């Protein structure tokens, strides 16, 4: 009579998540292929006055009413320090509440959050949506990141997953994920370029597809370039207009700016399809309207688009292919809907790009395919990705000695020997950086590794072998071995940006305290709601004539059903509650049928809510 999911034997699926600058999505791999679950979740987080934290569309609305308690585009802050984001702060209404060189703290209402905590709220929303749709707990995920994300940005994304209660089995580069979704069809072979221009990041990747292997040849990009930048250019024009028309500057009024931002985005989106669009604003009894033509828009975005072309050319060079050898160009990310972007890509690659895939969904779909590869459900595909940035260590005079070059297939490793410079020296400090420049100051500091407790000896006598390993997520780990003793040597890690392990642990604990109940609690609550319904309906039915027409045995089994359901009702096993609901359903079946037969329909309606 009722449909029951077998929670005991069903293996929880690994979901694929596209954690985007503007929007996020969750997808899952099914027999028929990857499928998007629920809908697009705007990457917006807001704190209600009650203190409740919300994410998604509801938070998006809060952006208009409570901009000071709401944050968007937080991806731009992931893995960065306060010093890094000064440019960003001029354009985005981030409310920075101090923090340190290595991490940022955002103020939302009365609370402060690090960027990974904000992202964790978006992830948790996706997790809950997926659980609601699939009816099983979700604990493992593949999350996508821009290919050009550095180590700290990747680590921050992984931290966000952990805080949200997700084991992040793999970080996959967004363009690579798109290629996976695109090339799922086994017949696809050859060289493919993926041009991924999203809300806040730009990536270009060139891959070779061969017999189910997706081999990334090279990648390049800009982690701070996207549709956001176009919005800001249009916003600036509109704000200047308004200042001269209205005689006062509204750029300090957050609510007005957010309303205007929404109008600007709407105009931008329309301009992909029509030759002119209007920016409309009604605020504080005043109205503003301005038409933007495609011509003006194109002029505005040309410099932004041009910034994507340099990385494309470098990527083609690094991949060691010629433009003619590239068989196909795949477009990903909402900004590739702009006709001028498509035109520029067509000119550069000398072929018409593929735009038939939904540019908003393809990354999440690809993440689900990668999840299928990890679970073993997809057997014939394999992704060989690369590290986007060279890894090096600081040597004398502030120079960088490169150990692992950019575009090396990951996992990748390198080994270096270290020794002491003075007699009796007890530790050696290794400064690891990421980037292509020759001077340390021009690269991104990753971490400082301290080789401690070196036995005192003559200078240059110690032999410590240090191994740098970049894993399949693009994240670095370092191990050291004392070659004289053959023993593991202890390494103390001080990440330059981001959270320490202890900080993440503390946030996980805190999120458990404050987050909604976990999956089994929610299941239990839902089971109890159903139990309430059937108990109430049964109670009512017992007053019905049909009840007294039942045989003694049937009445007894209904009584037993009620009592047994009541016994498990306050336990904590939702499966048991559901089993007893089923049992009572079964016991009341004849009664229900009789009641319907005697045209007392509906009295037992509540018993059927789960079937």
């Amino acid at each position, binding site marked *: 009579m009722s449909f029951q999911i077998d929670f005991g034997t069903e293996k929880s699926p690994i979901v694929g998540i596209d954690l985007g600058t503007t929007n996020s999505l969750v997808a899952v791999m099914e027999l028929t292929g990857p499928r998007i679950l629920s809908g697009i979740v705007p990457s917006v987080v807001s704190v209600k006055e009650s203190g409740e934290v919300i994410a998604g569309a509801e938070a998006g609305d809060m952006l208009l009413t409570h901009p000071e308690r709401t944050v968007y585009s937080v991806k731009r802050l992931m893995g960065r320090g306060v010093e890094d984001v000064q440019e960003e702060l001029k354009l985005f209404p981030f409310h920075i509440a101090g923090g340190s060189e290595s991490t940022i703290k955002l103020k939302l209402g009365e609370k402060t959050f690090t960027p990974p905590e904000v992202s964790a709220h978006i992830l948790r929303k996706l997790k809950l949506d997926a659980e609601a749709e699939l009816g099983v707990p979700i604990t493992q995920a593949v999350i996508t990141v821009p290919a050009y994300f550095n180590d700290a940005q990747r680590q921050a994304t992984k931290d966000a997953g952990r805080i949200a209660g997700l084991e992040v089995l*793999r970080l996959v580069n967004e363009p690579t994920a798109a290629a996976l979704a695109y090339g799922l069809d086994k017949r696809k072979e050859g060289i493919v370029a993926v041009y991924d221009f999203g809300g806040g990041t730009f990536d270009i990747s060139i891959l070779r597809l061969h017999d189910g*292997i997706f081999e990334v040849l090279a990648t390049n990009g800009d982690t701070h370039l996207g549709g956001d930048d176009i919005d800001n250019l249009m916003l600036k024009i509109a704000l200047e207009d308004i200042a001269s028309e209205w005689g006062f500057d509204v750029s300090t009024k957050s609510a007005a700016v957010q309303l205007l931002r929404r109008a600007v985005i709407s105009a931008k989106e329309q301009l992909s399809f029509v030759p002119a669009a209007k920016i409309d604003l009604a605020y504080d009894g005043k109205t503003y309207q301005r038409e933007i033509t495609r011509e003006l828009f194109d002029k505005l975005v040309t410099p932004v688009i041009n910034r994507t072309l340099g990385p494309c050319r470098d990527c083609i060079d690094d991949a060691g292919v010629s433009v003619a050898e590239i068989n196909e160009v795949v477009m990903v990310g909402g900004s590739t809907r702009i006709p001028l972007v498509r035109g520029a890509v067509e000119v550069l690659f000398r072929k018409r790009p593929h735009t038939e895939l939904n540019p908003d969904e393809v990354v999440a779909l690809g993440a689900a395919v990668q999840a299928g590869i990890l679970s073993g459900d997809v057997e014939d595909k394999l992704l*060989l990705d690369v590290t986007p940035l060279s890894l090096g260590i600081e040597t004398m005079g502030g120079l960088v000695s490169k150990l692992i070059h950019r575009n*090396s*297939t990951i*996992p*990748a490793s390198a080994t270096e020997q270290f020794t002491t410079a003075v007699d009796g020296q007890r530790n050696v400090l290794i400064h690891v950086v990421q980037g292509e420049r020759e001077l340390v100051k021009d690269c991104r500091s990753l971490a400082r590794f301290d080789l401690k407790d070196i036995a005192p000896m003559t200078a240059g006598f110690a032999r410590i072998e240090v191994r740098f*390993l970049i894993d*399949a997520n693009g994240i670095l780990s370092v191990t050291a071995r004392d070659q004289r003793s053959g023993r593991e040597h202890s390494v103390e890690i001080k990440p330059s940006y981001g959270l320490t392990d202890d900080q993440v642990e503390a946030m996980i604990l805190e999120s458990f305290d404050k987050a909604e109940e976990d999956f089994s609690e929610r299941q239990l609550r839902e089971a109890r709601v159903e139990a309430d319904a059937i108990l109430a309906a049964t109670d009512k039915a017992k007053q019905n004539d049909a009840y007294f027409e039942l045989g003694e045995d049937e009445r007894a089994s209904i009584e037993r059903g009620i009592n047994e359901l009541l016994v498990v009702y306050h336990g904590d096993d939702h499966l048991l509650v559901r089993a007893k609901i089923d049992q009572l359903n079964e016991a009341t079946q004849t009664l229900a049928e009789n009641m319907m037969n005697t045209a007392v329909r509906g009295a037992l309606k509540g018993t059927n809510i789960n079937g």
Partner: protein
Amino acid sequence: MRFYEAFDLEPALSLDADDLKKRFYERSRLWHPDKFSRASPAEQEKALEMTAVLNDAFRTLRDPVSRAEYFLKEKGFELSKEAPPELLEEVFELNMALEELREGDDSMRPQLMEARDRFIAMRDSIDESLTEAGARGALEEVRALLNRRRYIRNLIREVENVLPN
């Protein structure tokens, strides 16, 4: 030699590029960490380790120059960082020209571009000799060529740093 072992190959200066690539893909399919995401931590660790070495090995062996450098190093040959004596005079002149250009003397530009082209031609000719000497197994010769090549490569890089296209 570890990098050759990763491919089940006998150490040799010359390799069949297609065969190497085929072995790389075969082994990637078997060892990649993606194939072990539900295995024990120890197995995961091993898969990560083996794949990292496989990738490092492929990167090193597929390029004839890095392969030769690796091969010689493993055979106990030292690669020096000294300037090859026959190039000293040229290097001296080049450094002067670079210095003057850095100080803003643009008249040096044609001379530097010419030097760059000359060095690139030298490098290409060394690459040919490398293949040839490698095929003969003439290790001393290979070592001399590698030393010269490395030095010339640095010169090209230096010139290119001050001569943006």
